Every structure is written in structure tokens, then in C-alpha cells.
């Protein structure tokens, strides 16, 4: 019988038949932690009794979640992580390099790889056809020690994409719509696989946004086939040699097949306090917001800043609405400077935060006050997520975020985009 993308990758890395439902042991190509899950990983690694990590060149540490550190405790965690990197010879990306998932896409993820990270949005690298999934610190510690881990081969939902986006509608609107359809646990333990005629028109930035949020429907991975878009992205990162085409078999077995026509989508907004509480931006009209945050592993890429800059250029943010922007990596920041986006955004009243998670987790750089509302381009709006359980979090695309920064209330970007 034919195989899905998830089954193919797990087959190759486990040397077994790897059909949905099987438990397999598979080798891993990258194991990583970030600064809030890394310290416990190190403790568990030390407790496990292993003397060394299996392959240091396949292990990476990212200091991104609380970076630069906002507290003594975090600074001490950073010291611990730097020390571990020195001792074990693994990679470390210190403060200012960017968000782990963006750096994994830029530097590491290859089609057919297995990537495990101590962060739930590890699924992001599925955009490059890597079987990438989040785990906890103990699993990651043991994957570092052994160079492999166990997986239950997931059943797959195929999401067929047809048509193309209309003006003002983006990948974020698609994935919010899909999560609204599936529900926050609609794909628990499953692989989401994206296919269909629209793929050729979805660039890597859009694919990363979509794969990133697969976990918000409970999915284990969100996979795109490896095609010309993948090849183009890899060569733009100087990694053309890593390209290989990878597609599911025509007779692969899917547990569920869904079809989405991109041309019928409109700008979407997730309402508090759940990602699957999805409404159209039209219906959200008039909701006042005190902060707009554009960034994160979901929507902090160059294309996202380009959209925001094009909407905000020559305009000003609403006086009572703060506008925070965090590029997802140093490379993104540099390119956004070169292209003049940063200039337009700062002129419009934006505060540029260092590449990293910034306000996303509620640790620093934009914690909300009681009763405040924030429109964010992130992937999660759980109660308390941005540091205050008395705040309201809305999620939307960078275009909706930028349009809303101008008006001070949630605004359908189609109202402000001029052709």
C-alpha cells in the first residue's frame, strides 16, 4: 500500500515498514532546546547517566524566549546553557540570533529529516518536508544521548488546497480557518499533510506559517511535500545540496481528506481565549486594542514585515495603540533594514524588538496590563499567554495587525489596502 509523507520519512529513518499505528525507533537529524526548556533537559541528561551526547553536530541550543534576559534567574539559566554547549561541543545560538524555529528553517531543516525539539512549535519545519515535532525535556535529553527516539506513526489528514488567495488574505487566515474547522483537538496525534494545486503558489514563508500552527489543532506534524519551492528556499539559504524531492504516494491511505478553496477565504481573527475561537475580521470590527504585536515563529518573517510595512508606510499608528515588531531572526532583520521596511515601520510609530520570541510568551518586552487587549500575529491566545490572565488576546495576520494598528481597533485589512 502507498505511503503518506509521515510514513515515508519514518520508514526511511526507522528501517521498518512504518505504517500508521506502528511504534518505531527512528534516528534523528536535529535535536534542539530553547532557553525555557533547556535547563530541565540538561538536568535530565545528567540524571540519565550518559557521559556524552551522541552526535554534537546534530544538537542545538537557542537563547530566544527570554532574550536578552529579563531576570537574574533567566540569566543564570543562560549561563548554564552556554556552559553545556561549550562542554558538549553542540551548536549554540545566543541572544539576538532569532527564534529557534526560524533558525532551524534557515540553517538546518532538510526534506526527509527527523527533527525533535523541546518546543511545541517544532512542527514549523514540516514546511520543508521534515518530520518535525515537539517533545518535553526528558524525551529530548534521551534523544540527545541516543541519537534516536520512538514515535507512533501517525494517521494522516490530507488538506487539499485549491484556488488562490484574494487580496488581503494570507496563509495565516487559511490556518486560522482550518483550526476553526478542526477544533483545538481535532487532529490530536495525527499528521496534517498539505497538498493540491495551490501548493505551487505558496512560498516558504507561507508554508512555515501554516506548518507552525498544525500543533494548535493537536497535530504531531504539519507536512508539505518537497518541491521546487523547497528547492528555491534551500538554495536561497546556500543549501541547494540538501534538496531532494519528496511526495506522498498516489495511493497513500488518508484517515480524512478535506478541501479548502483559498479564493473563498477572508481575513480571520481568533478571539480569546482559544485559538479555535475563529471569526472573520469583519465580525471583529470595532474591538479596541491597546497593543499590536507583529512577530513570532508564526509571522515574523521578511514577507510578513513587507506586508506590514506596505500598509503602514506613510501612516501613523493610532496614538493609544502600541505597535511592537520583532523580526524572527537576524537575517530577517538585516533584510528588512536593507529593503527599507524597518524605516517605514519605525516612522509609523513601531517599536522594533530584538530578533526572538519577544512579547509572545509574556516574559518581557510587551507584557499586557489588566483589561488590555492585544492583536498579535502569534499562534496562541490562551488566558495569561502574554503575561497577564486579565488581558484579552486576539490572533490575526500581519496585514490585519498592521491595519488595526492604524485604526486602534480590529480592522479588516481590505479596508485599508490600496491597490
Amino acid at each position: 500500500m502507498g505511503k503518506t509523507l509521515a510514513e515515508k520519512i519514518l520508514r526511511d529513518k526507522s528501517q521498518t515498514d512504518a505504517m500508521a499505528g506502528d511504534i518505531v525507533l527512528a534516528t534523528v537529524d536535529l535535536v534542539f532546546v530553547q532557553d525555557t526548556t533547556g535547563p530541565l533537559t540538561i538536568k535530565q541528561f545528567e540524571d540519565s547517566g550518559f557521559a556524552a551526547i551522541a552526535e554534537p553536530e546534530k544538537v542545538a541550543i537557542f537563547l530566544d524566549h527570554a532574550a536578552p534576559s529579563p531576570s537574574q534567574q533567566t540569566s543564570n539559566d543562560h549561563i548554564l546553557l552556554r556552559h553545556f554547549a561549550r562542554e558538549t561541543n553542540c551548536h549554540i545560538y545566543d541572544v539576538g540570533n532569532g527564534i529557534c524555529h526560524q533558525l532551524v528553517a534557515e540553517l538546518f531543516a532538510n526534506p526527509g529529516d527527523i527533527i525533535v525539539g523541546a518546543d511545541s512549535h517544532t512542527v514549523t519545519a514540516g514546511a520543508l518536508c521534515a518530520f518535525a515535532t515537539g517533545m518535553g525535556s526528558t524525551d529530548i535529553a534521551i534523544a540527545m544521548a541516543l541519537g534516536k527516539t520512538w514515535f507512533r506513526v501517525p494517521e494522516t489528514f490530507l488538506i487539499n488546497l485549491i484556488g488562490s488567495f484574494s487580496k488581503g488574505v494570507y496563509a495565516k487566515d487559511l490556518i486560522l480557518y482550518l483550526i476553526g474547522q478542526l477544533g483545538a483537538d481535532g487532529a490530536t496525534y495525527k499528521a496534517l499533510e498539505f497538498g493540491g494545486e495551490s501548493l505551487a503558489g505558496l512560498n516558504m514563508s507561507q508554508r512555515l506559517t501554516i506548518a507552525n500552527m498544525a500543533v494548535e489543532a493537536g497535530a504531531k506534524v504539519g507536512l508539505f511535500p518537497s518541491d521546487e519551492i523547497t528547492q528555491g528556499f534551500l538554495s536561497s539559504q546556500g543549501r541547494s545540496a540538501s534538496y531532494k524531492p519528496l511526495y506522498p504516494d498516489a495511493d497513500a491511505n488518508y484517515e480524512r481528506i478535506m478541501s479548502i478553496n483559498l479564493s473563498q477565504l477572508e481575513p480571520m481573527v481568533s478571539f480569546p481565549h482559544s485559538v479555535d475561537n475563529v471569526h472573520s475580521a469583519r465580525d471583529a470590527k470595532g474591538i479596541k486594542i491597546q497593543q499590536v504585536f507583529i512577530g513570532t515563529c508564526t509571522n515574523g518573517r521578511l514577507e510578513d514585515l513587507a506586508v506590514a510595512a506596505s500598509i503602514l508606510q506613510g501612516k501613523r499608528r493610532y496614538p493609544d495603540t502600541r505597535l511592537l515588531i520583532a523580526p524572527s531572526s537576524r537575517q530577517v532583520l538585516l533584510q528588512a533594514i536593507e529593503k527599507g521596511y524597518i524605516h517605514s515601520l519605525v516612522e509609523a510609530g513601531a517599536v522594533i524588538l530584538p530578533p526572538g520570541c519577544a512579547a509572545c510568551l509574556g516574559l518581557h518586552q510587551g507584557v499586557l496590563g489588566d483589561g488590555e487587549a492585544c492583536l498579535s500575529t502569534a499562534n496562541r491566545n490562551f488566558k495569561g499567554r502574554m503575561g497577564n490572565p486579565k488581558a484579552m488576546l486576539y490572533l490575526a495576520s500581519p496585514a490585519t495587525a498592521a491595519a488595526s494598528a492604524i485604526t486602534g481597533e480590529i480592522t479588516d485589512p481590505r479596508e485599508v489596502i490600496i491597490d
Partner: protein
Amino acid sequence: MPETVLKGKAIKLGDNVSTDDIIPGRFAHLRSNLPELSKHIFEDLVPDFASRVHQGDFLVAGGNFGLGSSREHAPLVIKMSGIAAILAKSAARIFFRNAINQGLPVLLCDTAQINDGDQLEINLTEGVITNLTSNSRLTSTKIPPLMFAILKEGGLIPYIKKHKDFEL
């Protein structure tokens, strides 16, 4: 998993309890100080949790328990609070794996049959839950043998120390 039969009281929670509900992300700076971190368990969702929980109690939740972050501190602080097992209608996959890796049993069953404060007896080997208050029985979904083996050793670290590798 030193005991295979557990007895305790149910503390009932709703659906979609996230890892941010269990231990909010804003306390990430305390993650290397577990005794301090654990004081903030369920701070936003169940502010009186610490005074309600007793050693050996069970958390009884609805669907999608533990969704969100991969932070293993979530099952860790639950375990530190004295909770002996989690019963849920369904659980998010990273949380499920993390809890087992910490030696904290998670049983998936029809939790609508259990009320807050019910006395329960859980047979982990058989996956059977007896509700002593309502005099009824529930069966939980079987977990894969590898996960059960990890649970039986008390978590992934003791499992790996003993076996040196995963044994399928």
C-alpha cells in the same frame, strides 16, 4: 510506578486545560527552582488548588488536557502537588508523553461519569477505575506497551538507566 492500585479523591476540571493554565509561561524564570515554580500551579484557573489538593488525589479533566506548550514543568508541578494520576477524556500528545516520562499515570476514559470529590480506586495494570462513591466502573484506553514499560519503571530516566535504550 511503585503502586499499581491507587486510592484517592477526584478533583474535577473542565475541557481544554492548557499548559498555561497548569503553570503559566510568565513564571518561566522560576523553572530552575521547582519548589518556587510549583507554588504557582493552576494560579489563574483554580486559585485555591494548593489548599484543596491532598497527597494521592486524582485530577479528573475533560477533553484535550494539557494542550499547548511542550513544557514538562506542567506534569512535573502536578506530580509535586501530590496528584497521583490524571484521568481525562483525551490528552494533548506532548503532555501525555511528558507525564508518562515523569512517571505520572494518565488514564483516558469517560470522565463525565466522575464528580468532584468522588472517591476512586484505580488499577493501573488493568486500566480499571472504580468509583467508590457512585459504585460504578470505568475502563480506560490501553496505552502502548513501551509507554507502560516506561511508566512501570517510574519514568523515562529510571527506564533508560536500566535498559540503556528503548526496547520495542
